[in-house]
């Protein structure tokens, strides 16, 4: 090879390398004068849209009398099944078969007998609870079973206590949805002070559990000498049952929860409110408040002071913990991953629930529905991992009891942020008197945990435990808030909580605040780059071949 040829070769190669370097195409680039257009990224069809209110049982909403039990009106979109209420008041042993058939309760779920103190109400109460897994895994395919959506498209694995039920656990034959009795939160249980209460845990689940009666007056062992505190060392194993016996002397808002691997099982949802009501003559209590929320048959004492009664159960979920039961089916793998691999000290709260739902599903069954000049009793329990700073827009309410102990008039403070520690209960007197202090007047007043995480669903706002204190005139005939159509279009959509859709992808501001599209590629530059790289490789291979041939000669 002559020197001249070598120089030409090197110059050519350098030029090509220079061109290649200058024309390297990038994966992102600065926009020219016109940035890319706004695009709609969510699904093009309607499959991700959810109807705000399915309006399945409008006949359940009005006030009614079933088997002699008077049931208050419940204007919400998803009112409690009034037959469940009747069975919860009378006991499954004292209602007609036709009423029982309208529920999913087993015939021995709640038996009420024996007026021990001769004051006109039954005092021996047998309650049977089962443990139910929601949104669990199946070896039969890539789907979840006994599903319960906490928000559009959100199905975290959950465990709940449920009143002993009968029949299909699914809603119907073509469905994987759990029947309405099987839902979060674990049901609120109400008994009367002095009642002889037998709570039987029939462990239908595949891991051991117990019931610990937090704050409820109970002996440490039963008369028979059996374990009665629901502690870990006396776990009720799968297929076994155990009866806890109590005769509470003190009334108040208390709790019950599983005390096996407590941190995890509590956060999986095995916790609920246990309310002991003061002994009153002819007192009829609604033993189960399925799904918490409005009590459709308040006790004699409540009715003396209050026009309505609500149970508010706050709960949070770590999506990593909830996933464990969805990613394996073998109980040994689940036990290992939940008890040893999972580390509670490295956990997060991703979902925040009020009465088993996150916003917007809280609007279906977790609203407080009021008129002006009402006195409303709220039982609030914090069953989440972190503290709550509950704020009710437009109202200042009064704390009447803490952890089931009444406060003296001097101790009762009126405020608009209630700090509630984990496992703590606040009894609150909410007045809708339009006086500029207790209420600012009728409206659709939001109420929510004011800790910033609490209003999100896995970080998506608005979500979490946001709900509404709704004055009746602002509700439509299906019990949904009026004047919220645009918000409903946005949030009753699975794509929204899957983070596939821009927050403001609807309405007049969509072109401004929707998702930005992509830059169009610069084809000339890309073609030049390709050409340069190709030539470099070609030249090198060619020169190697020539060199070898020369050597062989």
């Amino acid at each position, binding site marked *: 090879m002559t020197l001249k040829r070598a120089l030409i070769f090197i110059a050519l190669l350098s030029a090509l390398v220079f061109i290649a370097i200058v024309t390297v195409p990038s994966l992102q680039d600065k926009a020219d004068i016109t940035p890319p257009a706004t695009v709609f990224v969510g699904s093009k069809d309607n499959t991700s849209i959810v109807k705000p209110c399915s309006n399945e049982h409008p006949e359940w909403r009005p006030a009614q009398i079933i088997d002699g039990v008077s049931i208050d009106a419940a204007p919400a979109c998803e009112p409690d099944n009034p037959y469940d209420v009747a069975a919860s008041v009378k006991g499954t*042993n*004292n209602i007609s*078969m036709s009423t*029982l*058939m309208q529920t999913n309760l*087993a*015939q*021995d779920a709640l*038996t009420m*007998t*024996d*007026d021990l103190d001769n004051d006109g109400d039954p005092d021996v109460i047998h309650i049977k609870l*089962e443990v*139910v*897994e*929601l949104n*669990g*895994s*199946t*070896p*039969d*395919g*890539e789907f979840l*079973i*006994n599903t319960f959506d906490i928000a559009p498209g959100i199905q975290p694995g959950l465990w709940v206590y449920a009143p*002993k*039920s*009968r*029949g*299909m*656990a*699914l809603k119907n*034959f073509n469905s994987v949805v*759990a029947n309405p009795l*099987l839902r979060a939160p674990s049901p609120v249980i109400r008994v009367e002070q002095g009642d002889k209460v037998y709570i039987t845990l*029939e*462990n*239908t*689940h*595949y891991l051991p559990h117990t019931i610990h009666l937090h704050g409820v007056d109970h002996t440490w062992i039963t008369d028979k000498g059996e374990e009665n505190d629901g502690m870990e060392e006396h776990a009720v*194993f*799968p*297929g*076994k*049952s155990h009866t806890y016996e109590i005769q509470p002397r003190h009334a108040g808002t208390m709790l019950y929860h599983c005390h096996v691997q407590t941190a995890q099982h509590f956060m999986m949802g095995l916790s609920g409110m246990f309310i002991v009501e003061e002994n009153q003559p002819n007192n009829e209590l609604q033993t189960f408040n399925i799904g918490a929320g409005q009590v459709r048959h308040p006790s004699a004492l409540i009715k003396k002071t209050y026009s309505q009664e609500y149970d508010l159960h706050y709960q949070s979920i770590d999506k990593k913990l909830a996933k464990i039961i969805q990613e*394996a*089916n*073998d*109980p*040994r*793998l689940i036990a290992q991953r939940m008890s040893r691999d999972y580390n509670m000290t490295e956990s997060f709260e991703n979902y925040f629930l009020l009465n088993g739902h996150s916003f917007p599903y809280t609007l279906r069954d977790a609203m407080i529905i009021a008129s002006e000049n009402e006195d409303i009793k709220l039982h609030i329990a914090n069953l989440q991992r972190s503290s709550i700073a509950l704020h009710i827009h437009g109202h200042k309410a009064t704390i009447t009891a803490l952890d089931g102990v009444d406060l003296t008039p001097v101790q009762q403070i009126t405020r608009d942020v209630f700090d509630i520690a984990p496992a703590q209960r606040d009894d609150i007197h909410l007045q809708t008197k339009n006086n500029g202090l207790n209420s600012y007047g009728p409206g659709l007043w939001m109420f929510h945990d004011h800790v910033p995480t609490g209003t999100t669903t896995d970080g998506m706002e608005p979500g979490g435990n946001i709900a509404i204190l709704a004055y009746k005139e602002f509700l439509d005939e299906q019990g949904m808030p009026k004047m919220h159509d645009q918000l409903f279009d946005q949030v009753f959509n699975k794509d929204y909580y899957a983070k596939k859709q821009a927050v403001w992808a609807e309405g007049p501001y969509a072109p401004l605040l929707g998702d930005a599209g992509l830059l169009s590629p610069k084809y000339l530059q890309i073609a030049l780059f390709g050409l340069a790289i190709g030539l470099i490789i070609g030249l090198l291979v060619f020169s190697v071949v020539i060199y070898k041939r020369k050597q062989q000669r």
Partner: protein
Amino acid sequence: MRALLLSLILLGNLQSALAMDHGGMIMDEKGMIMNANTDRLPRDCPKISENVDITIHAGQKNALKFVGKMFAFDQQEWNVKPCAKINITFINDDQIRHQLMIHGLPGYLYPEGMFHLELYGEGQLQASLIMPSQKKTYLVHCELPQHMEKGMKAQLKVDGGDGDLPSIPGLTKPVKADIYPVDWTQLTWSVLFLSALLGIGIPFLIIINATGINNFYQKMLSKVRRKNK
């Protein structure tokens, strides 16, 4: 005491009065039977071909023979002739609720295609059903949340059945199988490395001996040519 006795008697009467038939459903405080059928023949069956008595135990202890399960029936498969009448004795050995459901039956005899037994706790009950003549495999399971998933699943085959259902404990594979770690020891790693070395060595051996191989080939070739001449 008298009041207690009286209420117990009243309660007993009430409960027995409640054990009645509701359109194919018989229910009492112990359990329920839905869509039992002792005498109505399926359209395709001129008569009952055989009477089969089956006792099925349901309970947690039956899962012990299957790893990775929690609840099970004591058997996982039954075979009957077309048009067989099956008399089931269903026994629940647990203190909790269990069910025995059979799906896919003809809807004109069994509403929603289902035969359903349920025991609210320990106990037993008896019920019969008559199978159609079709060659088919029926799902038998307990429908409590996670009970079928955790092992309470079986199949009933008429005339040999039309295949197997997935994830029946000890019988068939799951559709979505769990993943387990593999036990890698020093021996496992040694075997891997030795086989890889051997694989790399073979081409080298061929190149090193290329001349020898070529010579050998040439020799053989010339021998063949001489013979042909």
